[in-house]
């Protein structure tokens, strides 16, 4: 599971949905890998306003990844400024770092834990399993 996807999921239990502690899910015993993805700074620009930056910071911290800036980068941080109009704007290092973090950093094996109910969702071969047993549905 990519870190971008992790930013859009919470505990699947209906009982947990209203609790703020059901998001983000916390990785445990996570084994990370980098999966190459198409670099698309415009897609990042589309996603930036939809991200929960604070949750992303928590995840980065828990996975011992480099510390993020304290607030969401602005769209203008993704492209080099200058060169009015002539050539299309070049993506910045910020864009490349974000791409690597959100789209390429993958939890290959491990668990995602809800800190509201303690339920653990397993990730195997990069595929997270959010199915629930009947007593939790």
């Amino acid at each position: 599971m990519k870190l971008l996807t992790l930013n859009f999921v919470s505990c699947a239990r209906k009982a947990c949905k209203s609790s703020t502690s059901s998001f983000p899910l916390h990785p445990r015993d996570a084994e990370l890998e980098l999966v190459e993805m198409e670099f698309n700074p415009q897609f990042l620009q589309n996603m930036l306003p939809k991200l929960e930056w604070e949750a992303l910071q928590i995840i980065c911290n828990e996975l011992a990844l480099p510390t993020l800036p304290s607030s969401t980068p602005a769209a203008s941080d993704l492209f080099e400024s200058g060169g009015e109009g002539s050539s299309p704007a070049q993506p910045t290092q910020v864009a490349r770092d974000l791409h690597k973090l959100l789209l390429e950093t993958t939890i290959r094996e491990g668990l995602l834990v809800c800190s509201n109910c303690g339920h653990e969702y397993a990730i195997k071969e990069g595929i997270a399993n959010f199915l629930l047993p009947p007593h939790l549905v």
Partner: protein
Amino acid sequence: MEYLIRSAQQHEDFREAEIKALATLHGFDVEILSYSNESPYCVVRLPSDDAAKLLIERSILACAIYRLWGQGSDYDSLHEDLRSRTESEWSKYKVSSFWFQIKTFQSKRSATARQDIVESFSYLPFDGPITPQNPDVEFCVCEYFDKGTLTPKQIYMGRLIGNSCRDVINVYDLKKRSYISTTSMDAELALVTANLALAGPNKLMYDPFVGTAGFPIACAHFGCIVLGSDIDGRCIRGKGEKDVLSNFRQYGIAGRWLDGFTADLTNTPLRKRRFLDAIVCDPPYGVREGLKVLGSKRGPVEEVYIDGKSAYKQADYVPPKKQYSFTAMLRDILQFGADTLVDNGRVVLWMPTANDADVELPFPQNPYLELVSVSVQEFNKWSRRLLVYRRLPSVEVDAAAISAYNHQAGHTADELNDFRRKYFQGFKS
């Protein structure tokens, strides 16, 4: 300005919806001036040649678009119309190399008859060379015949603006795809579905019944970053070398497959947050694949223990699933769309119906979504419809509709699967 679109005479009911969707995708208006499911020729009004080119480039069901030079019910009226529309433009092509194509629908023309048709345009003052390969300008005469007749009923003449990308259907042909299942959507309709979803670069698309990822592949072809889930994780994981990812690799678009995960839409882990640009799905009808959701058919149950340990924590645990109503599932999909789509984001879903009018299922509705188009694919005794909805920006949502919708919420949740019952009764009334 008026343009002639020449389409394939296939999946007719989807063509108009596709043209309109592509205009919406590129942000310009299209006005359909004449269209019929019985004819491959359609006349539209578009702002410019550039718009026409953009429109056709992404089209799957159209073949080509032409600037309309003239039309008529016979050659005399065609020539007269052509003269009045374009005489001022003729000089532009005086020295250009050019070529004439002739397309007939429901009839044939011999080589000499074709020659005669081309020569009837000899009053055009074109002095350039006649070159079939890469001419500067290409004209097309399109004839429509009623079946079994020898004189055309309607004739169009136009200057070629651009061709469609119909040939990508071959690239994505299921016969050549390494990993498919019994219910995979054929490549042509999957690509059309992606067009109706306004798939495009920089967008995030999600399929909650991903299967072998037919729709995500079609959307990724157009540049989308795609996400899929299924209640049956085995289909995403695949077998051996063949899995969803290997399909993406086959087409060189693996860099657009964001994630696959195992989940049930009625207990989705995705948050109620407006982050998706499109939701595309072909939900299980309950015929070839069961329509099930998480839970026990015995109703609420206690936790199960095996040898004093929670059963669900065992490695090989498979959670039980129960039957679910198709009507309720459609309702859940639309509500999920209302919760997660951005403004003007689209839900595109397939829904089966019996051809018999009195067993027709009503279209599912949601106050936050507006039905944009309905296209029908007919089979012998049943048909399926492709429903396209647009997420209304919050200011456009009708408050009265929301309260009416919430009021009737309790009723339909446990309805039986009407379609499944009728299907197995052989659609006898």
